[in-house]
């Protein structure tokens, strides 16, 4: 491309707007993180660097139990969703169109289409009657609800990986005397592994982030980290919430980086 003179791809003002957008995107996040290290009680005035709020948050039993609950739910839901999504991806890709395939697609992607608040309300109503009927109040409701909306997020990278996979590899395995189970175990699964890992990580992040559905489905004393923070928000702002947010943010960035490296390496 010509660097001097007329550059065809340049559109006037676009780069300026883009830079402003990136600054505007990151400035609030950076402010949030910076203020989580503020020594003062106030969230407005900077009173020096301190890890006080991180220590406070860690000492707070409510935060600790919400963290553990969040991680537990995200772990269970991402495992369930990834397993189900992997099977569904194997069932719906790389074969001739079969009866009901479109229906299966729509069902799997349904959580991406229905507004979260509607699903939340639906689950509130449905689970409320189950709670009355069975008396069970445990975390099972949250886990199954999270599993459901995580399925499409786990499904997409796995399916993409499968579709990018050379079909002749499995044909070659069959040619070399591998049974269908051996072919799956020795060829398909190892090649699919990065897709499955990526899907599981996305599912984990999505579950960890959820506010609305969790808020409606949880029983008393089942706060996750996001619903705990939302509850705090209703009262007074504390830097403690900033500290928790920063940790969650760091976790997201970490998982995303891993996700990118995983998918990039295999391109």
């Amino acid at each position: 491309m010509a660097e001097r003179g007329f550059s065809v791809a340049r559109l006037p003002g676009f780069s300026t707007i883009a830079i402003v957008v990136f600054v505007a995107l990151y400035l609030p996040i950076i402010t949030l993180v910076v203020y989580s290290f503020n020594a003062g009680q106030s969230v407005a005035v900077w009173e020096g660097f301190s890890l006080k709020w991180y220590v406070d948050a860690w000492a707070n039993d409510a935060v600790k139990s919400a963290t553990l609950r969040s991680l537990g739910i995200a772990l269970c839901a991402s495992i369930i969703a990834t397993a189900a999504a992997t099977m569904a991806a194997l069932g719906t890709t790389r074969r001739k169109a079969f009866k009901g395939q479109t229906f299966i697609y729509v069902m799997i992607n349904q959580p991406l289409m229905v507004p979260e608040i509607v699903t939340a309300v639906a689950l509130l109503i449905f689970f409320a009657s189950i709670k009355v009927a069975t008396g069970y109040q445990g975390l099972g409701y949250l886990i199954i609800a999270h599993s459901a909306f995580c399925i499409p997020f786990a499904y997409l990278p796995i399916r993409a990986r499968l579709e990018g996979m050379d079909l002749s590899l499995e044909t070659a395995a069959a040619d070399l005397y591998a049974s269908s189970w051996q072919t799956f175990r020795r060829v398909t699964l190892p090649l699919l592994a990065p897709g499955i890992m990526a899907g599981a990580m996305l599912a984990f992040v999505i579950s960890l982030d959820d506010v609305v559905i969790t808020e409606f489905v949880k029983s008393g004393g089942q706060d996750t980290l996001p619903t705990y923070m939302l509850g705090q928000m209703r009262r007074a702002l504390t830097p403690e919430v900033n500290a928790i947010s920063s940790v969650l943010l760091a976790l997201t960035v970490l998982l995303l980086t891993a996700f990118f490296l995983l998918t990039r390496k295999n391109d």
Partner: protein
Amino acid sequence: MSAAEDAQAATATRNGWLLSAPALAILTFAAAGPLLIVLVYSFLTPGRYGNVEWALNFDGWIGILYTKDIFDETLKLADANMSIFWRSIKLSFLTTIITFAVGFPTAWFIATRPPKARALWLFLITIPFWTNLLIRTFAINEVIRNEGLMNTVLLWSGIISEPIRIIYTDTAVFIGMAYVYLPLMVLPLFASIDRFDMKLLEAGYDLYASRMQVLRRVILPIVKPGIVAGSILVFVPSLGAYVTPRVLGGGKNMMIGNFIELQFGQGRNWPLGAALSMTLLFVVMVALLFYVRAANGEKKNG
């Protein structure tokens, strides 16, 4: 087809369904199935302490638009509801427009970087995309609230003498939604600009088009699928937004999402909440249908 081929096709269908069964079971139980229950509930009678009584009643649906006078039971247009719907639609549209206006140059900027730098810029837009919506809402709150960064800087520099009070207004909700949903606009726009053949620009300029003409007559028509996708991805969650208006609107400036929640909380009118949910779902489905048709039309033309 031979019998062997028929048998193969039957096996493929059976395996497809069997393998999808666990996912379908979970989704039916905890996502799609309960939507039907919401539909049923919208035709029932509100219970005294929430929940419902099993008696057919259309008040839930009527209640979307009208209020019943307590004394003579006449129907009046519900002004409060109207203002909530109007706010939801207005803010969702505005959010879509502003995110497009700034998102398009951003996506263009990313797509025209050299490959290495492009991956980095793309990663930078992806981080907010995957960051917890609640955290991003808190973050923007840090900037726009009365004692926030914006006012601190403006007061300190002497540009203003009184803090700008926008928190808990429609403006705050609008800024917040634009901030949290911007990545949803940029990513599909980027995807379609990335596929755009830059040689077409050379052809356009070669044929005497100005920069604006190239933008309007070449670029925008070709990246239209990305524009439609981005607009839907922003408009749909905006319409159903719950967290952002709750945190930045401060309870007064409700949108449909908060209004629905209210019916299941203090409002104790589950059938009305159910009917509102169904209405929201219907509007979203219409928008999605529009998107599918636009996307398919694009495919036929292309």
